[in-house]
Every structure is written in C-alpha cells, then in structure tokens.
C-alpha cells in the first residue's frame, strides 16, 4: 500500500508540474523560444527577430512539435473613460493561439480575436471591470514604438477573458499580431519571440538541439522555457524540493513499516529458527532463507504496489481529479492561472525508480533482522 501511495503521489506531483508548465508555456512562448540575444536582459519591442518562414514550417513538420507561434510582447497603457491601467500588450496569431493556448478558450464575454480583426482586442476580466469596458466598447492603447516614439491607437473590445489569475486578468491585452506590428512599427514577419509548442515535453532537449542545428546563423538565441520563464522554473524547483522532503518522509514510513514487519516476523519465528538450528541447519543457510523470503515478499509487494499505484495514476492521468472544491477559483502560480483539474504524469522512470528503491531497501533492511535469526541461545529459546 505504501508503494501504491508513493507512486500515486509522486505521479500526481509530477502531473501538477507538467500541467503548470504546459499551461504557462502555451500562454507564453512555448517550450522552446527563439528571441533576440539581448531580449532576456531588457525585453523591448525594438529587440525583434525575423524567423525565416522555411525554418518555421520545417520545425512544424517534426512529429514532436504541435505548433509554432509568433508573439509580440510590449508594455503600454490602456485607457478608457473610466481611467487608465498599465498593460502587457500581446500580439498573437489568433488561429494558432486558439488551438494551443488556454487563454483563448477562456472568453467569458464576446468572442476571441481572429486574423482579420483589426484593431480589435481581448482584455482580461479585471481590466474590463476597472476600465468599465464592455464588448464593443472603445479603448485607447498608448505605447512606445520601436523607435521610442509615443503612439496611441483606438481599439474596440471584441472579447473579455477570465483565466483565474488576477495578474493576467488585470494586465493582459491580446490583439492580432499584424495589428501589433503596425502599432509598434515593426516590419512584416517580425516578432519578439517565436515559440515551439511540443506534443510531449519530454522531447524538449532533443527538439531544442534540432532547432539550434536548423537555425544556423539566425540572429536569435534559442532557449528552453526554463530560461525564458525563470520565475516558474524556480517555483517548481523550490516546490519540488519541499515535495522531495514529503516523498522522503513517505518512503521512510514505508521502509520503517517494512523493517518492522520483517523484524516482527523474525522475532515471532525465533522458536522455529532455534529448532531448525538445533536440527543442524547451518546459520548461514538460515540467514539466506530470511534474505530470500524478504526479497520474495519485497518483490510481490513491489509488483502489487506498482500495479495498484500505476492503475490509480493511470486513471487520474486519464480522467483527472477535480480539486475545484478545495481550491479557490483564482488559483494561480507566479501570476499564471492554473486549472483545478489535476492529472498525474506517468512515466516508467518514476514507477521503476520508486519500486526499485523500495525493493532494494527491503532487501537491505532485512539484513538487520536476518542477524537476529542466529544471534540467540538455542537452549533458552527452546526451553
């Protein structure tokens, strides 16, 4: 049972991280990001890149790649008759975004933007409240273009999204990328980032390497999401650290229970062992018998634990657990909205490592009770 719980909870933890990363990178610039080499130091629209269309199409044809997306990220001020707010302006490819980003699917009023919409935008629920914006209402976006000049653009609200993240809902404005290029004075096919969304995040390293090879002399750095979104990566690292302690305690409790069971079984059978020794059984053979028994029991326990834990993890991987009754609606991490339906992430590595640790520890722990099998007085025990 201990192994079942360990496998399930470790898979659930890994699933939560994977979901978190997936949500975040889909809303941002993918698992792999191409951006201007100086963009990380000082993100600004004048640090744009132009990715050759051929490269983009080639990357999209790789089986590991779900989509590529172009993004323009800028800062500005959103104004309406009710006031003004600082805003993150995201120029996106609406059709790609709709298929790959959870934000585009969280429209609560109106509709999401499309390629032809110009100058139509979607804003967050909080921003709409604060600026008293409704679908169809006008607003002004003020920002600096690539030359540093102040520009203002009148737009109309096409939709209002609600992700559950207060930061995103109060701060983000999305608009078609073509419109944002004009707003910021950027050339055709330019973007501040190109993102690669993967079907399976475990392929990140491989695809990153391939993209770097294919990109050749392109003037851009190609980064994994961990370097583009260091806050999220640090949060996961920290949380994994505390989870590691929890998992360590869980495994310790499992091993303590196993040790106790083996020890009790040996002590309960002390008389039997004394009798076997009296009849001429070699102490070494008796110790070996305990070792084999423990290994056998450990193996059976591990098989059962792997089966039950794997089954539970599989079911939650497939159907998920709805945690909405335990978590607030605006559940967010590092400013990014998270889903309250949790899924496990199953991998042979997690299952085999956990089962392997428990099995080897069982065999190792049986060495202590094993010594007890022959370290007593036969006469006193049989008396």
């Amino acid at each position, binding site marked *: 049972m201990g192994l079942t719980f360990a496998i399930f909870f470790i898979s659930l933890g890994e699933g939560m991280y994977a979901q978190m990363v997936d949500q975040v990178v889909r809303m941002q610039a993918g698992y792999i990001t191409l951006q201007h080499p100086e963009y990380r130091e000082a993100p600004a629209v004048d640090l744009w890149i132009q990715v050759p269309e051929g490269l983009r199409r080639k990357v999209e044809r790789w089986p590991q790649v779900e989509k590529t997306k172009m993004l323009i990220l800028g800062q500005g001020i959103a104004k309406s008759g009710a006031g003004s707010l600082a805003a993150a302006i995201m120029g996106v490819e609406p059709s790609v975004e709709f298929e790959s980003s959870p934000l585009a699917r969280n429209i609560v009023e109106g509709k999401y933007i499309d390629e032809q919409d110009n100058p139509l935008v979607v804003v967050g629920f909080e921003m709409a409240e604060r600026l008293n914006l409704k679908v169809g209402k006008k607003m002004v976006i003020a920002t600096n273009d690539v030359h540093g000049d102040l520009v203002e653009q009148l737009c109309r609200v096409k939709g209002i999204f609600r992700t559950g993240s207060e930061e995103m809902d109060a701060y983000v404005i999305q608009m078609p990328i073509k419109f944002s290029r004009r707003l910021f004075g950027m050339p055709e096919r330019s973007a501040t980032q190109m993102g690669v969304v993967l079907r399976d995040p475990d392929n990140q390293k491989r695809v990153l390497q391939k993209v770097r090879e294919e990109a050749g002399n392109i003037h851009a750095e190609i980064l994994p999401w961990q370097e583009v979104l260091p806050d999220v990566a640090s949060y996961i690292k920290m949380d994994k650290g505390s989870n590691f302690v929890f998992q360590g305690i869980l495994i310790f409790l499992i091993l303590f229970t196993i040790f106790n069971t083996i020890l009790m079984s040996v002590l309960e059978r002390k008389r039997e062992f004394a009798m076997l020794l*009296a009849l*001429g059984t070699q*102490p070494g053979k008796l110790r070996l018998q305990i070792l084999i028994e423990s290994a056998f029991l450990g193996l059976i326990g591990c098989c059962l634990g792997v089966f039950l834990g794997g089954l539970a993890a599989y079911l939650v991987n497939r159907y998920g657990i709805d945690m909405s009754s335990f978590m607030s609606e605006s559940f967010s991490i590092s400013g990014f909205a998270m889903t309250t339906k949790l899924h496990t992430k199953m991998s042979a590595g997690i299952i085999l490592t956990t089962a392997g640790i428990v099995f080897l520890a069982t065999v190792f722990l049986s060495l202590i009770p094993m010594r007890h099998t022959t370290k007593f007085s036969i*006469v006193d025990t049989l*008396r």
Partner: protein
Amino acid sequence: MTEIVKTEGLTKDYGEGEVVTRALRGVDLTLEAGEFTAMAGPSGSGKSTLLNIIGGLDRPTSGIVTVEGKDLGKLSGTALSRMRKDRIGFIFQAYNLIPVLTVMENAEYVLMLQGVVPQKRTEKVRSILKEVGLEGMDHRFPRELSGGQQQRVAIARAIASEPALILADEPTANVDSKTAAGLLDLMRGLNEEKGVTFLFSTHDHAVMKQARRLLILKDGQIEHDGGMVEDIEAA
C-alpha cells in the same frame, strides 16, 4: 563396545558475578553404542543441561565432551551444526515440530539438509512413519495430530537421518501414561532392532523401568549410575 559419548569434569554455570548457579559440577560419563539410558533426578538437577551440552546446543563452562571421539569444544559453529545434523537426533518434550510443514515434511527435514534426493527421502520417511505408527498421515499438519502422534513424528524425524545418538529430553512428559508406554516401546524397539543409542531424561518411574541403564543426577552431579530403578528404590 564403541564409545559414543564421553564427558570429563563437565561443569556449567549460569549467571554472572556473585549470582552464579552451578548446574553441572564435574560430570564424568561414558555412553557406549547401543545403550538405552535413562537419566532421572529432581528438577534443577542438571538433566537438560547435560543433554544440551552433549547435543552441542550449549557449551560447558569447563570440562570436555566428545561425541564419537570428536571434542565438541574444539568444533566450529559450522562443524557443530554438521555434527547435530548427521550424528545426533533430538526429541524434545514440546515436540518442536514446524507447524507449517506436514508430517512428511517435518520428518524428512534433516534428510533434506543432508542433501538426500527427494524420491529417496520420501521412500525412507514413509517406511519410518509406518514403523512409528503414522502410516497414512503424511499430509497432516502437526495441529491435526494428538500429542502422542506429534511425538512420534519427532521420533521419526530424529531417527530418519540414522544418527549415532538420540537425545530425548523428557519425551513422555506431555502425554498420558498409555501413550508414554507406547512411545517407550517404540524407542526401545528402535534401540533393539536398529541399535540406535538413546539417552533420555525423565521423571516417570514407569519410563525409568524401561531403561537398561539409569543415571540419577542430583545437584549437578551423577549420584548413581547403573542399577535398575527397583534396586535404587530398595537402597
């Protein structure tokens, strides 16, 4: 006659420091092959201690004990285990059968330790079980047997490996007098027909009467060695 057991100046102390109990005080004893010897004496006289030391289950504080000419004090743990397995059979008062093994498995355990092939040991044990009156009970577990039947299994286990010596610590103490008489007949029959040497402890006069040699132990010493129980009673 061949000498099977010889003890010289055997002493055994229990406890440490000032609280030392001397269980044996210089026991000198010789057992010849084929003897059927009973050992009697009050509780605490040292009967079980002497049996345990002769059987290599315990070590004496001082003195020498040899079994078939081998000084047990000089044998390693492994050699002592081998000696118990091949040359000595044990019958305990509490039977000490392995509860999870059947009659057949209990009886053939020592043969298995000796590496006898399964078919041979099954044949041998089956004939021994017949000899001790347990024919057809091969597959029963100890809990399904009476006390007398369990002790018969213990006897079968003790003789299966054809040891030079069988040590029995109050083998009839836990059974009724009729069963005790049956067990004694069985042991005596094995002694007479197969020449197995027996040394057993007892409190029971009826059992003592069956012995050809009687030892009386008192306060850790052999007080009497030789005559029949009637002679001792008369004296």
